[in-house]
C-alpha cells in the first residue's frame, strides 16, 4: 500500500508499526548528516523528499554498531570516526572549515589520478550559503583581504610558504539539533528515523532506479519509489551501499569499472617536525586566533602553488595558531597532509554480515611513497622558510624519516570512494554527482572528492550538496 505525501514536514520513527514504510516521493536521500540535511532542506518545499536516517534522535549502540568492520591497513577507527544518528558525524565535529585551494582541483602531473572535472569557481556561488548553514559568519577565506600581510602570523612573505584562513563554526553546528525544527516543519519533507537503506532496485533497462528497500533493526521493511535517489551516508558508507546492491548487478551499482570503494583518502594528521626558534619574539602575539565580527578564524601555514609544482609536493596545512613559541621548548609542528589518490587504498566488502544482512567492510587505508615524500617535503619547505628568514630550524621526527605508519593519525575525513570524474573509467560519479551507468542515482558528500586537499572537508562537501540541489532542481523542473 502506498500512502500519500505528507503536506507538512515530519520526523517519524520507522520502527513504529503504525508507520507505513512503503512510500513515494520525488527524492529519496539516504543519510541525515551534513550533506543529506543540507540537500533535503534545499529541495523540500518545492518537492516531496524522504530523508532516511539509520539512527534516531540520540545515539543507540545497536545502530552505531552497524558501522563496525575490519581495518586491515593503517590504524583506523571505523566506529569512532563517524556517528549514526540524526545529524550524523556533525554531532561530534570540531567545526573547523576551510576552502580547498585552486590547485587542489587541478590535474598535477606529479600526483597520479589528480584533477577534478570541476574547478574551485564552480563552488564559489555556494560559499556564502554554505557559511550560513555551518554558522561560519562569512564564506570569505581570502587571507589577504582578511589579514593585512604585515599582520600575518608567520614572517614568511617571499618564501615558499603562504597562509590560509581556517574558520570555525560558532556555535559548532550540530545539524540534527539545529535543523530539527526545519526538518519537522518544511512542507513535503519526511524524515524517517531508524530507517536503513539496504538495497536499490533498478528498472529492467538497467539504468534507472525505481525503488529503495528500507529495513529497520526491529524487522520492519518497505519499498520507497522516487524519481531520484541520493546517497548521503558518508565517505565509507556510500561505497558500502553501492557495493552491497548486488541483487541485480553482481559487482554492485556503479561499479562496472571496479572503482567503487577505491581511492579512500584521509588527511594524515602528523606531528611530524619540531621548530626551534632563533628569535624568541618572532611569533609573539601573532599566533592567536582572530575575530571576524563574532566568529573566530585562524591562520594556517601552507605551501605556495609554485612550491608545490617545483618540489612536486602534496598540499598541507600547518597549525600555527595558539602556539606558545616563547617557551624554551621546541614548537611542535602539527600538520594536516593531503593524501595522494591511491586505488589500493580502499573499502571492500567482507563475508561478515551486520544485523541488517549487509556485508561489513574491510577498510585498507594505505599511503604511498608520494605521501611520505609529501610529509618530508612539508618539513623541508617550512625549514627552508625559517632558515631563509633566520627565524629558526626544523627537525623532522625520526619516525618520519623511518616512514613508520603507526604514527600517522587521521582526521575522520573519509574521501574519494565514489570519486568524481568526466570519464567512467576514472571515477564513479560524473561532474554532477550522478553515478555513471545510472540515470537517477546521485552521491552527496566527501566520497565524491577526486582529491582531498589539506583542509577539513565539511565546507566543500556542503557546497557540493548545494550545487547538487541546484542540479536536481533543474532536472525535475
Amino acid at each position, binding site marked *: 500500500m502506498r500512502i500519500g505525501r505528507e503536506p507538512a514536514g515530519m520526523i517519524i520513527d520507522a520502527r513504529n508499526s503504525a508507520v507505513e514504510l512503503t512510500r513515494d516521493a520525488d527524492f529519496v536521500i539516504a543519510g541525515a548528516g551534513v550533506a543529506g540535511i543540507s540537500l533535503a532542506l534545499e529541495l523540500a518545499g518545492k518537492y516531496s523528499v524522504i530523508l532516511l536516517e539509520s539512527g534516531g534522535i540520540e545515539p543507540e549502540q545497536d545502530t552505531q554498531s552497524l558501522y563496525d568492520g575490519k581495518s586491515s591497513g593503517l590504524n583506523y577507527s571505523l566506529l569512532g570516526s563517524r556517528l549514526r544518528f540524526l545529524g550524523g558525524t556533525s554531532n561530534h565535529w570540531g567545526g573547523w572549515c576551510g576552502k580547498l585551494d585552486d590547485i587542489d582541483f587541478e590535474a598535477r602531473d606529479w600526483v597520479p589520478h589528480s584533477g577534478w572535472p570541476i574547478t574551485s569557481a564552480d563552488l564559489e556561488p555556494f560559499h556564502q550559503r554554505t557559511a550560513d548553514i555551518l554558522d561560519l559568519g562569512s564564506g570569505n577565506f581570502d587571507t589577504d583581504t582578511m589579514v593585512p600581510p604585515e599582520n600575518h602570523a608567520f614572517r614568511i612573505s617571499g618564501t615558499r610558504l603562504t597562509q590560509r584562513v581556517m574558520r570555525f563554526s560558532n556555535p559548532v553546528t550540530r545539524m540534527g539539533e539545529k535543523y530539527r525544527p526545519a526538518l519537522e516543519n518544511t512542507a513535503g519533507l519526511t524524515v524517517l528515523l531508524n530507517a536503513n537503506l539496504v538495497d536499490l532496485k533498478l528498472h529492467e533497462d538497467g539504468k534507472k532506479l525505481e525503488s529503495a528497500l528500507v529495513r529497520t533493526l526491529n524487522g520492519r521493511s518497505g519499498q520507497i519509489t522516487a524519481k531520484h535517489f541520493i546517497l548521503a551516508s558518508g565517505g565509507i558508507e556510500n561505497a558500502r551501499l553501492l557495493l552491497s546492491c548486488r541483487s541485480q548487478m553482481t559487482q554492485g551499482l556503479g561499479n562496472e569499472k571496479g572503482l567503487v570503494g577505491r581511492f579512500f583518502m584521509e588527511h594524515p594528521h602528523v606531528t611530524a617536525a619540531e621548530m*626551534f626558534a632563533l628569535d624568541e619574539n618572532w611569533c609573539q602575539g601573532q599566533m592567536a586566533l582572530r575575530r571576524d565580527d563574532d566568529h573566530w578564524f585562524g591562520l594556517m601555514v601552507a605551501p605556495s602553488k609554485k612550491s608545490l609544482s617545483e618540489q612536486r609536493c602534496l598540499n598541507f596545512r600547518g597549525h600555527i595558531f595558539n602556539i606558545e613559541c616563547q617557551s624554551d621548548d621546541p614548537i611542535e609542528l602539527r600538520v594536516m597532509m593531503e593524501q595522494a589518490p591511491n586505488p589500493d587504498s580502499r573499502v571492500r566488502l567482507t563475508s561478515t554480515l551486520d544485523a541488517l544482512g549487509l556485508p561489513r567492510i574491510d577498510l585498507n587505508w594505505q599511503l604511498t611513497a608520494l605521501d611520505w615524500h609529501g610529509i618530508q617535503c612539508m*618539513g623541508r619547505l617550512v625549514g627552508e*622558510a625559517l*632558515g*631563509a*628568514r633566520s627565524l629558526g*630550524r*626544523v*627537525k623532522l621526527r625520526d619516525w618520519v624519516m623511518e616512514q613508520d605508519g603507526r604514527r600517522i593519525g587521521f582526521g575522520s575525513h573519509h574521501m574519494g570512494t565514489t570519486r568524481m570524474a568526466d570519464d567512467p573509467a576514472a571515477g564513479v560519479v560524473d561532474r554532477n554527482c550522478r553515478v555513471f551507468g545510472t540515470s537517477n542515482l546521485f552521491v552527496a558528500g566527501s566520497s565524491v572528492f577526486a582529491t582531498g586537499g589539506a583542509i577539513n572537508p565539511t565546507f566543500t562537501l556542503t557546497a557540493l550538496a548545494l550545487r547538487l540541489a541546484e542540479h536536481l532542481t533543474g532536472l525535475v523542473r
Partner: protein
Amino acid sequence: MERREFLKNSIGCSLLLALPLGCQQTGTLYDWRSLAQWTTGMKPDLIKQLGDYAGTMQAPGQWREELPVLPNVRWLDEGATSADEPEALMQTLSSESRRQFASSHSVIVDGWVLSRLEAALCALAESRPA
C-alpha cells in the same frame, strides 16, 4: 635534545670558540668545526652528530666540491682562509646559508633541514681533526 640551547647560545659564544689556525697571505685560517658552528649556530655535540650523518650521505670530498664561491673566502683542506674579520666572515656564511634556504638548496640530515653549506661544513668538520 638541547636545540633551543644551541640556538640561544650559539652565535655569541661561537665567536669565542673559533680557533684561528694561523695567518696566511689571504687572511686568517679558520677550521671546519668553527665554520660549521658559526653557520649553523649549533653546539659541538650536534655538529658532530650531523657531521657524522652527513658523512654517510656522501663522501667528504663531494661535500667539499659543493662549497660555494664566497667573497674573501678561500677553501683549503684544513678549513678556510678569509681576509674578512670574523664578524664579517660570519655574516658572509650566514647570508649564503639564508640564500641557499631561500633557493631550496637544502638537504635533510638526520631529520634536520640544513642548507647545503651547513651540511657540508658539518661533514667536513667531522672528517678531519679540529
